[in-house]
């Protein structure tokens, strides 16, 4: 069964031998077997067609070994922050003492060592996402991360931020995994911050596993930034929603290097609802891939996706969105929209919205467009005296904000709008 051939895969195999000794051997073994079956995905793997990881990861960087002391970290949000630095959960850098009632936190390393059944079973991703080699690799090699349990009925007012940074001076690999479980009716706002604090080309493979019990609600904002030309980041989200549960999510991708955010969400109870929106601000040689699978397994679910790719310079945007409606998932309502703006002659956009439908009484659709800024609109603004770059910025801002409008948290919305403004002001300044 093991048919890993390349040098890169041999290196990964040695990582696996190392990590296997550090807890959860059965879970890791199953994940490693799944990864071994596929190996590193090349363009020939359908779901990785536009992101050739086999080439990008031909030299896996050594596993991170963090022994860094306390250091000041950038802080963008007034949040309860849980920090994972260079592959290790750092209680000393986290707001453990400020955690409100109803929130229990431990490091993934401890959780794996204790091997509590419900944590272990939540970490194992048997169904959706099982086909993805890189998510499997994450499970096989996970070093550390954080486990957050939110009690049934708890309504957490302040946002919980899961911050993951790489700070090493030399290239390194990190495999981190966070697990957030919300009890029945619990509510929380989550911020997922993935950033780099150094200019070394990191290879970060992070996963967030979200389990929403019945009627739980999550608002999730994900921010992928940083990176350099050779850096690789795969950030996976694996979400399970029980009946009436709701997730509302927005992801912003900016920075340099290769970023892939992949979302696997399963609507596993009736009337569950999921919103996944996002925007990419592409500059330089950024390669930003958003791949999304929404799996409607039970009736009366609703899903909405709205993505905006803004691509300048030689950046490459990828959007692959698949909506699956399983047999029996009647009354499913799904709508997906992906729009892209190409701002330069060298930018590229690849769109692949997909539908896979096995139930007849459903309403599903998708739309995808790609083009440049509307000439008439530009003319209108420049005719009123706006310099061309500013006119463009105004239109781009409006384009990006369309995807953010649905967010409920005003502070987060302001943060994201601000990121867009910063990106645009750099564009105007050039």
């Amino acid at each position, binding site marked *: 069964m093991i048919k890993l051939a390349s040098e890169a895969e041999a290196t990964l195999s040695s990582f696996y031998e190392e990590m296997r000794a550090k807890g959860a051997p059965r879970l890791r073994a199953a994940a490693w077997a799944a990864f071994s079956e596929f190996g590193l995905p090349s363009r020939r793997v359908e779901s990785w067609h536009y992101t050739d990881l086999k080439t990008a990861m031909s030299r896996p960087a050594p596993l991170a070994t963090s022994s860094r002391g306390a250091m000041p970290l950038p802080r963008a949000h007034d949040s309860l922050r849980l920090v994972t630095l260079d592959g290790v959960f750092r209680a000393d850098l986290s707001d453990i003492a400020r955690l409100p009632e109803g929130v229990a936190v431990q490091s993934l390393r401890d959780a794996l060592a204790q091997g509590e059944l419900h944590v272990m079973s939540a970490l194992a991703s048997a169904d959706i996402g099982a086909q993805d080699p890189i998510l499997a690799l994450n499970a096989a090699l996970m070093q550390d991360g954080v486990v957050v349990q939110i009690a049934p009925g708890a309504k957490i007012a302040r946002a919980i931020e899961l911050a993951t940074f790489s700070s090493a001076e030399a290239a390194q690999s990190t495999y981190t995994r966070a697990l957030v479980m919300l009890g029945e009716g619990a509510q929380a706002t989550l911020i997922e911050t993935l950033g780099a604090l150094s200019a070394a080309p990191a290879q970060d493979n992070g996963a967030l596993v979200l389990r929403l019990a019945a009627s739980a609600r999550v608002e999730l904002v994900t921010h992928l930034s940083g990176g350099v030309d050779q850096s690789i980041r795969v950030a996976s989200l694996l979400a399970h929603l029980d009946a009436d549960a709701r997730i509302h999510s927005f992801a912003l991708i900016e920075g340099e290097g290769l970023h892939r955010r992949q979302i696997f969400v399963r609507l596993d109870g009736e009337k569950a609802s999921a919103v996944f929106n996002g925007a990419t601000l592409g500059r330089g040689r950024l390669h930003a891939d958003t791949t999304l699978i929404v799996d409607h397994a039970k009736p009366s679910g609703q899903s909405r996706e709205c993505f905006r790719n803004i691509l300048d310079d030689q950046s490459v945007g990828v959007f692959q969105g698949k909506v699956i409606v399983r047999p029996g998932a009647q009354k499913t309502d799904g709508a997906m929209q992906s729009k892209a703006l190409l701002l330069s002659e060298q930018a590229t956009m*690849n769109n692949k919205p997909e539908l896979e439908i096995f139930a007849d009484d459903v309403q599903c659709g*998708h739309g995808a467009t*790609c083009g440049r800024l509307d000439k008439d609109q530009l003319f209108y603004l420049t005719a009123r005296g706006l310099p061309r770059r500013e006119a463009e910025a105004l239109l781009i801002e409006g384009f990006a904000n369309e995807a953010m409008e649905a967010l409920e948290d005003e502070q987060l919305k302001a943060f994201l709008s601000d990121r867009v403004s910063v990106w645009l002001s750099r564009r105007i300044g050039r």
Partner: protein
Amino acid sequence: MAARQETVARVESIDVDAYKYGFSTDIESEKAPKGLNEDIVRFISAKKSEPQWLTDWRLEAYRRWLTMPEPNWARVHYPRIDFQDLYYYAAPKSTPGPKSLDEVDPELLRTYEKLGIPLREQEILAGVETRRVAVDAVFDSVSVATTFKEELAKAGVIFCPISEAVQTHPELVQKYLGSVVPATDNFYATLNSAVFSDGSFVYVPKGVRCPMELSTYFRINEQKTGQFERTLIIADEGSYVSYLEGCTAPRRDENQLHAAVVELVALDDAEIKYSTVQNWYPGDSEGRGGIYNFVTKRGDCRGRNSHISWTQVETGSAITWKYPSCILRGDGSQGEFYSIAVSNGYQQVDSGTKMLHLGKNTKSRIISKGISAGRAQNTYRGQVSAHRKADGARNFTQCDSLLIGHDCGAHTVPYIESKNPSAQFEHEATTSKISEDQLFYAMQRGLTAEEATALIVNGFVRDVLQQLPMEFAVEAQKLISISLEGSVG
């Protein structure tokens, strides 16, 4: 629900068990030995007295084919095909090269009569319809008759079996054969290049508007034979041709392979309209038998302002694997794809198109309607791409699917790739995309919401059907005149 009921009834009426072309003709035929090897390739080439270059071309394709893996990316499932258990050449025995219809086996003529294909020119002339269609009839591996050849020749149009064109116009065949679909293109196209038997050849000279519709009627008759037809159509500068293709096969328990290649070349300002009504035997209601339709169709808009339009109505075949494509190479060229794919029983369809925008100001339009009933799986798979230099490229794509019943599936897999900021691509796949305005307008005039929906959707499907030439539109409408109300994705 009236409209929906009507739809259900219509789709059921094209029930696979009611396949009316399922008879077989008892006719003596000459076959190559079963299986495939270099000798078979040489045998086919020798049968057709081909020049050496073509024999070599076939052999090279065969050797290449041996090294290729079977494609498995399409959403279709079937047991492995045993390529050694097929006959690669079958021809009805008759006097060699019949000079006129009188020399053609009467059994064959009766077959075409039963299929409703007119092979006798006088009968066509005596008919009420004033429009005429020239027909090339391909029976298993050979063309048995081509009508109106003289009249077409007067206009300068060459319309003949490709095996004949190899003899009479070798320079044209050599120049264009494999220039759109290279012999190395894909597993089935390469197999076809090695063993292709017959098909039509069309050349329309500069500035000529072909005086009548051209049509080829493909019939698989023999058991355990594959049909590997090859069609090549060249429209020289400023010319126009409309070409129709129809296909049927007897009802048999075994699966039969049909791996065709169609190449279209449109030079400057030329237009080719290619229409297909595909009605191969789909298998019975238990999923036994039926044709595996693994076809490579590609048009090359090689010249400036050239135009290629594909229209297909797909109701047959157990498995369809088919993506009629346009390479929009010439500046200002246009590609169109209109498709209605109906699947029932255990049919599996994985079909769509590719629009590759290479030239400046190229335009393409894709309208696809998939209807899935019974236990069928119907997938639209399409690619639209804009090359770096494709300034001002435009595409509009709309895919609608309709599911009837709990056990079928409808899938949409579009690939939309743009490397040019001035390229404008729009893709939609929606549930019966009817605007509120249209509904409001119709309901203002006294129709119920249901009637209004049916009216609008019916009108829309008719638009697609109207892309077909008259003769085929009637046939296609008989096969499906379906309202798409309540459709998904």
